[in-house]
């Protein structure tokens, strides 16, 4: 067994987990909302891409460009119509409402698409690989990781270089004062959730091309995303990437020792970080 290879695979897998986590982190950072339906929304986006691929007969990479605005719109509407109503001091309503959405989404998808496993057709790229320093690296995992880095770079640019980002930060710090300055928090929140669902769509693209999916796998994706966010520390997107990488490496190393330990090893890594650094490795926000 080649340990270096295992670790490289784990790092690249971490890119996928960082993609799962970035949307969750964004929404929590701006409105302190933990969306328990996050994982199911990833699966929903994967089905959306699948439907576009099968109806139009185009590649998933093209289909995602149609799915992105649709998912942005769904996020915007979801936030305006449902989630904005439950934001507030009490953490119970948003948790219970998003948990309800999770259960409804899972079962609606099961009804609409059946429980059969599906996959997005990756084309030639799915099996292509590169030889780097004696290691065989798949193009698809590499592309996933590169996309994760790109998403985080773009998000950081939006956050610190644009008017929208300024509004995000202002609303996050103090929604009341921000609204005195002419910002409408309800719209800012809706835009944030819209952007989060665009990231979810990108995550869904790679999830669907790399492995099989079915309507029931959402909660596990939510859990990986959550672990990556907590390991990285709240409010730090690069921390989230590091968190994803730690889970990814723990999983591939665990799987290399015993295939049954893959998932468990990721969770154990999370618990160890929680034990040693309860606020994560690179905390920025104070919560």
């Amino acid at each position, binding site marked *: 067994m080649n340990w270096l290879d295992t670790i490289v695979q784990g790092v690249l897998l971490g890119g996928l987990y960082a993609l799962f986590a970035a949307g969750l982190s964004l929404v*929590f950072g701006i409105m*302190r*909302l*933990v969306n*328990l339906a996050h994982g199911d929304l990833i699966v929903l986006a994967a089905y959306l891409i699948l439907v576009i691929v099968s109806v139009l007969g185009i590649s998933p990479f093209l289909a995602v460009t149609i799915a992105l605005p649709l998912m942005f719109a769904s996020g915007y509407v979801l936030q305006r119509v*449902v989630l904005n*109503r*439950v934001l507030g001091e009490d*953490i*119970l*309503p*948003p*948790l*219970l*409402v998003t*948990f*309800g*959405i999770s*259960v*409804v989404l*899972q*079962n*609606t998808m*099961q*009804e609409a698409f059946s429980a059969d496993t599906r996959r997005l057709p990756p084309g030639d790229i799915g099996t292509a690989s590169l030889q780097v320093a004696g290691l065989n690296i798949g193009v698809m995992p590499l592309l996933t990781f590169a996309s994760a880095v790109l998403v985080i770079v773009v998000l950081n640019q939006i956050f610190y270089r644009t008017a929208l980002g300024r509004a995000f930060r202002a609303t996050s710090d103090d929604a009341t004062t921000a609204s005195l300055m002419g910002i409408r928090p309800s719209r800012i929140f809706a835009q944030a959730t819209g952007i989060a669902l665009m990231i979810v769509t990108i995550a869904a693209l790679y999830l669907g091309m790399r492995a099989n999916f079915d309507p029931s796998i959402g*909660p*596990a994706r*939510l*859990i990986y995303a*959550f*672990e990556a966010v*907590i390991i990285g520390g709240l409010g730090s997107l690069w921390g989230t990437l590091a968190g994803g990488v730690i889970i990814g490496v723990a999983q591939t190393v665990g799987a290399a020792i015993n295939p*049954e330990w893959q*998932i*468990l090893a990721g*969770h*154990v890594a*999370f*618990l160890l970080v*929680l*034990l040693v650094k*309860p606020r994560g490795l690179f905390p920025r926000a104070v*919560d």
Partner: protein
Amino acid sequence: MTMHAIRAYTVETRTRASTIALVVAVLIIAVAIVLPAFASRRLVQELFFILTMLTLAQFWNLLAGYGGLVSIGQQAFVGIGAYALFGSVILGAVDPLTAILIGGVAALVLAVPFAFFAFRLNGAYFAIGTWVLAEVVRLSVAQWRAVGGGTGTSLPREATDAIPFVGAIATLFDVRDPAARDILAYWLALALAVAAIGGIYWLLRTKRGLALAAIRDNSEAARSVGVDAAPIKWFVFLAAAFGTGLTGALIYLQKARISPDAAFSVNDWTAYVIFIVVIGGIGTIEGPIIGVIVFFLLQSMLAQYGTWYLIALGTIGIVVMLFAPRGIWGLISDRTGLQLFPIRRRLVVGDAFKQQSASREE
């Protein structure tokens, strides 16, 4: 009240409605005890299911509704209770009734490291944290080969035959052994539900319960008057784990077949329970009772449609949370002022001042 007549004021929680409710409750319990004498086996099984869900809902409500601890990991305690029962019966040849207690203790023991990790996360993150921990427990138990690993196992015939009292019940009601086992399980579920409701009600009326409500309503204000939140949260979490573990062990004693995916199912043991509490009315003892009735009616109407049932339940849960966050019981008690399990302390003026105060009381 006459006892305190010499004093001008007393602090009371009892109302006339609660006294009537107590009498009605005693009557219902009495009927429920003798019910197996004339009920069909199917009805006994359905009531068993309702009672166990009610118990789980009461404990989840204690955590989330009173303790502010929204756990999505309670299936860990159902599962560990059930597995402790199977483990001690299969490997230790313990008799199954004693093994139910072992199930509760196992859940209690698990709750210590569980809470240690979960309490490091605040608020919303606590919720997903408990979910992760429950997954860790499920995946670890699935490695336990002696009780069937990932595929699970059944209770051996000798063990189910050796359950105490089953023979006596069979003779008493003139039924076969499997039906007698269901009756015993039903009685235990009834006892557990009554003990859970009674115990939680008692807890909420003690000083500790008052502190709990204070922390939930405003943790800073509670701290400023000297209420230490940490020990109370620990106490509530451990108590809920113990009760949930007992219930889990009992459920799987009746099922007699276990697998990690079923015993640690987030849908069966936590999602349903959350919807029962939310629909009925979170933060009240009456809420889960109403919720479990609605849940059961919905299930009898929609169960044949499978996934549609969960879609309906989830949608109702969302709508209730958005438009009537205090649930069905909240709507009833807002309209009528009714409280069957009052915990609010009221100042009652003694007999001498009774006449004037009568108008001021509700």
